[in-house]
């Protein structure tokens, strides 16, 4: 999978830009606040239809632009079999994503056409942040790897909204069961699928990231990812989907009055988490800064391998400011783990630091939202 062309119009501080990335490593370099991360964000939009910085698409519109401005990101992608023209257009009110000149009715139709693994300083949140940061990690990665997972997540969330609306309404307690049942029955099937995927995914992620974590230099430490899920221990290790759905449905029923009292669904995969342990201790509270960085990177590197296993394609790699964050030893280790063969986009303030450790094929000097210098084979 390869990005052949990217062009931008009115995207944050970028008025207009066109690049033809190399198949290997592409470097965006320049001083702070010039537009390097913006360009990476635009590429991420082509892959996922979303930003990795914000939930609000309209933040992409240039601040000083007139109200009817449209941000447009265009990309041409080469898959082994086909080429796709992907366009993301954002204005004040809406976002439209199209593939080969056909508007897509949901982002699910975009996902899977192209995959990317993104490394950003914000990844530390996966280790240090709240459960929702870890769920977002699971869901973004899972959805890219398996669009069925995305479908179950979307359905689950839609039913959850309906169910919660019912719990917030002035429904009488005696009518509650009859009205909730029709949602419980459906939501438990999706919950079982979500459980099943997360369980399997975390098991594979543990295996792969453990190995990478050790290679990164923090030798000998054990790494565990424990799925802290809505079933607790009730399933006794059984992961048959029908059994899981039945257990969850029963739990939901047991909690009907409790849920009514709270006005929302108290138990379910929307509350899931996974606990990261180094040598048996929870990393969220005990890991050092250096360990936290290595961990975040180990998870992302593991993700590359899993993405390839699940989809059969090498993902794009988007690396924002990663190289500058690591000390010399970790940097060399990290970069040596990035085997050649991935189309890579990497940002940095200093061209030499990156070029000294990676075979950069094309470099773009970014200044004030423009490319001021383009080099091949520096």
């Amino acid at each position, binding site marked *: 999978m390869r990005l052949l062309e990217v062009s931008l119009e009115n995207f944050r501080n970028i008025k207009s830009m066109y690049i033809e990335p190399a198949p290997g490593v592409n470097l965006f370099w320049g001083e702070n606040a010039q537009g390097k991360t913006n360009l990476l964000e635009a590429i991420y939009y082509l892959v996922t239809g979303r930003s990795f910085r914000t939930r609000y698409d309209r933040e992409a519109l240039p601040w000083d632009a007139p109200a009817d401005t449209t941000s447009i990101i265009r990309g041409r992608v080469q898959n082994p079999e086909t080429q796709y023209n992907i366009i993301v257009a954002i204005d004040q009110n809406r976002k439209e994503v199209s593939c080969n000149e056909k508007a897509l009715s949901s982002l699910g139709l975009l996902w899977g056409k192209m995959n990317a693994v993104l490394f950003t300083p914000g990844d530390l949140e996966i280790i240090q942040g709240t459960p929702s940061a870890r769920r977002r990690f699971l869901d973004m990665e899972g959805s890219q790897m398996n669009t069925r997972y995305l479908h179950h997540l979307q*359905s689950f969330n*839609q039913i959850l909204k*309906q169910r919660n609306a019912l719990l917030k*309404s002035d429904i009488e307690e005696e009518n509650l069961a*009859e*009205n909730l*049942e*029709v949602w419980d029955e*459906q939501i438990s099937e999706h919950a079982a699928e979500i459980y099943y995927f997360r369980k399997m995914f975390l098991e594979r992620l543990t295996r792969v990231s453990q190995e990478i974590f050790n290679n990164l230099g923090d030798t000998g430490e054990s790494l565990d990812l424990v799925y802290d899920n809505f079933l607790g221990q009730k399933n006794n290790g059984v992961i048959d989907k029908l059994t899981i759905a039945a257990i969850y449905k029963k739990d939901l029923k047991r909690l009907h009055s409790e849920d009514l009292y709270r006005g929302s669904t108290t138990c379910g995969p929307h509350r899931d988490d996974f606990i990261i342990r180094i040598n048996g201790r929870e990393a969220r509270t005990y890991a050092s800064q250096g360990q936290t960085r290595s961990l975040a990177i180990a998870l992302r590197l593991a993700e590359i391998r899993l993405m390839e296993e699940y989809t059969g394609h090498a993902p794009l790699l988007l690396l924002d400011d990663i190289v500058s964050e690591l000390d010399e030893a970790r940097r060399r280790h990290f970069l040596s783990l990035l085997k050649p063969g991935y189309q890579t986009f990497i940002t940095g303030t200093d061209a030499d630091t990156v070029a000294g450790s990676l075979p950069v094929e094309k470099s773009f000097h970014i200044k004030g939202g423009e490319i001021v210098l383009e080099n091949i084979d520096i």
Partner: protein
Amino acid sequence: MLERSSSFETLVAELNKLPGIGRKSAERLAYHIIKMPKDEALRLSSSIKAVKEKIFFCSLCFNLTEHDPCSICSDPSRKKDRILVVEDPMDIAAFERSGVYHGIYHALQGRIIPLKGITPDRLRIKELLDRIEKGGIREVILATNPDVEGEATALYISKQLASFDLEVTRIGLGVPMGGSLEFSDSVTLGKALEGRKKFS
């Protein structure tokens, strides 16, 4: 540029209330209406008036009709022992176009959507139960849309029907998940109807 008069604003506001019509589209339509020949515009307004005066819901099946009961309910050649339950009269029209169904219908006038405050008592479910109670019905086919709200509605009705001696089926296959019956073609609807499954 036209000076914005209050009658123009009223028209825009009214058009804006229609489903799928935002403020901008409403303005565009209003300008279009202003530019239309007068007799054409009046034909539009009198046809709106006519449907509001002549068309109402069939008292048996809640289809749209100019006579009560509607032409389907009063057609002696229709098989009266099976009811196809749909969300809206538009779905009845889709099945009629397909020509694959020869029984009678029941339009619920919507589906369960707690987010919009639409609870089962706001639908024509009680009327459906009344019709079945009167006897003569052997099969109820649930053909609500194949998305989460349509599914919830079908489930709810199937539970209400559990105490009757009836075959309750759900149209299956064919209609794409998340698709809408109204836009499904005849072949798809035909297959969906053939592939209906017993509701457990």
